[in-house]
């Protein structure tokens, strides 16, 4: 079997969908952050795929990926900090308890 771009893209899409499913259904705030990481990795997979198959000379996608990983790390750090500060106030990380801002 010859590896094609489509397979990478499909895998990334599947990973992205799994991430979204986790993002929407998780009750634990940390798992939501983990799902976001999954989605970002799906994006990274896309970028790498495109970089290899379409732009093998200048590999701009790989540079993007490096940036995404960096920013994702920062975002995870901030996200965990937010979760921690909410936990300090409400003593829970259950997403369904954080519904104060409704209608």
């Amino acid at each position, binding site marked *: 079997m010859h590896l094609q771009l489509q397979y990478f893209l499909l895998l990334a899409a599947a990973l992205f969908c799994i991430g*979204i499913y986790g993002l*929407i259904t998780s009750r634990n705030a940390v798992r939501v952050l983990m799902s976001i990481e999954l989605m970002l990795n799906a994006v990274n997979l896309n970028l790498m795929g495109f970089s290899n198959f379409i732009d093998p000379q200048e590999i701009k996608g790989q540079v993007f990926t490096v940036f995404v990983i960096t920013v994702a790390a920062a975002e995870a750090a901030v996200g965990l900090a937010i979760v921690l500060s909410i936990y300090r106030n409400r003593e829970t990380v259950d*997403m369904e308890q954080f519904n104060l801002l409704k*209608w």
Partner: protein
Amino acid sequence: MAQFFLETAWLIPCYALMGSILAIPWSPSLIRRTGPRPAGYINALMTLVAFLHGLIALSATWNQPAQEILIPWLQVVDLDLTIPLEFSSITIGATLVISGINLLAQIYAIGYMEMDWGWARFYSLLALFEAGMCALVLCNSLFFSYIILEVLTLGTYLLVGFWFNQSLVVTGARDAFLTKRVGDLFLLMGVIALYPLAGTWNFSELAEWASTANVDPKVAALLGLALIAGPMGKCAQFPLHLWLDLAMEGPVPSTILRNAVVVCTGAWVLIKLEPIIALSPLAASATLIIGAVTALGGTMVAIAQIDIKRTLSYLVSAYMGLVFIAVGTGQSETALTLMLTYAVSMALLVMSIGGIVWNSITQDVTKLGGLWAKRPASAFSYLVGAAGLVAVPPLGGFFALLQVGDHLSSTYPWFLGLLLLVNGLATFSLTRVFGLVFGGKPKPMSERSPEVHWPMALPMLLLMGFTLHVPLILLQWQLIPDWSTLNTTVAGLLVLSSAVGCTLGSFIYLNNGFAKPVRFGNKSLQDLFAYDFYTQKVYRLTIVFVVDLVSRAISWADRYIVDGVVNLVGILTVFSGQSLKYNVSGQTQFYALTILFGIVLFGIVVSWPLLARLSLIVNGF
């Protein structure tokens, strides 16, 4: 000199109008110190001035052709609304009758309204009536006649509603206004429909037009019927006659005016319109039949009344019915003579009974009696008035009725029989009232009944003298046929019918042996006449019921359907806002889902052509 007064005859209505305005300051809320009497004196003076002016003008108009002056009022595009005034011996003579009777009624009111504070309002309205009626007879245009008729309808409303703290007065004024208004509105339809046909509203030009007009019979019939509807309401003809009965709630001096002259305003317009009505045989016979039914019904209802004012008000309808008969058979001149003799006699009758009511308090004829010896002036006035109204040879009514009968005998012999019957019944009715009020034994209400004081007695006696002189005036004006051409058969029959009515009435009501209250025939039949054929109930069950029902239905539809639809829009908006706010669930993950849905949906929409091609490829395989 007299010529000057003739040329300024347009001032005659203005005097009264001025009096009407000058009376207002003596309303109880304006001049608080002097009391209301000057209002009456000013108006009587103004009426006297108008009367004298008319008298001098009449002497100038004698044996002269009619003069017409034009007062420009309004000109818009191709419509020229100029007020034409006609000064002829007939019109000036009519203003004399109007201002004369009004003067007497105003002097009478000085006595009658002794214990009343509302002189300013009362005299102001009386003067308004005088002004309106004088303007009506001088005005030679159908359009302006209509305007004046409407003003007088409003005047009737205010004058009947004079003592408005009485509930019956309020309902009576309401009915008087609405009934006359309905007739006037039909008249307006006729007035407006006439303009495209004739191109003028000037009565003399209308008569010229009608003499050569070639109008579709249906149009002519509808036009004629609309034009008689106005006078029908004004003259209290069946079926628009209930208002006159209810208008008897007003003060007596205004009743003098109403019974004698106001109801004649409609007849005046009808007489002026006679050439147009004659265009359609249907309209002419409708006039005849309305008049005949009213004359017969009115006299019979008058016989069954116990209210003394109402016994006369139905005779008013009946005599106006005779005017309708005269107009329906094309006798305009006779109708005018009949109106003159009628107005004078009826005013005298109302003055006489007004004096009785004034110090016997009750209006119930069954509670009055035996006033003959105590009230000779009133009794003689009543007798003269009654004799002047029905066919009693030397007096005016006889000649007028004779002319009507003479014409009927050669054209509609059946209606001559009706005329004789009406005359007999009217005589019976008048004799009955005389017998009950002046004859018989005194009853508790009339045990001590002094004769009235001079302001009421003076106009009554003056008018009695005038009534006695009416035949001489008619002779002077050559309105009476020569003795040689007199139709002796009709004259004999008329006198016979009066004699029969008088004898029968005297036998029943001047005979103390005859049991009173008189019961004749069927009780329900007697009630039918006493309650005026239950006209009030008929109105209530037909027109009033339908209009009430329709207005309720429309009001309901407006409130619940029209308003409802608009309110529904508002309610739906509020409801949607209230229910859609739950989309803001407060769950961050739900927001993320919504964003996702949005993106997916947008993606599908954007890439739809692509997807469609894809499906084609898939299907291709």
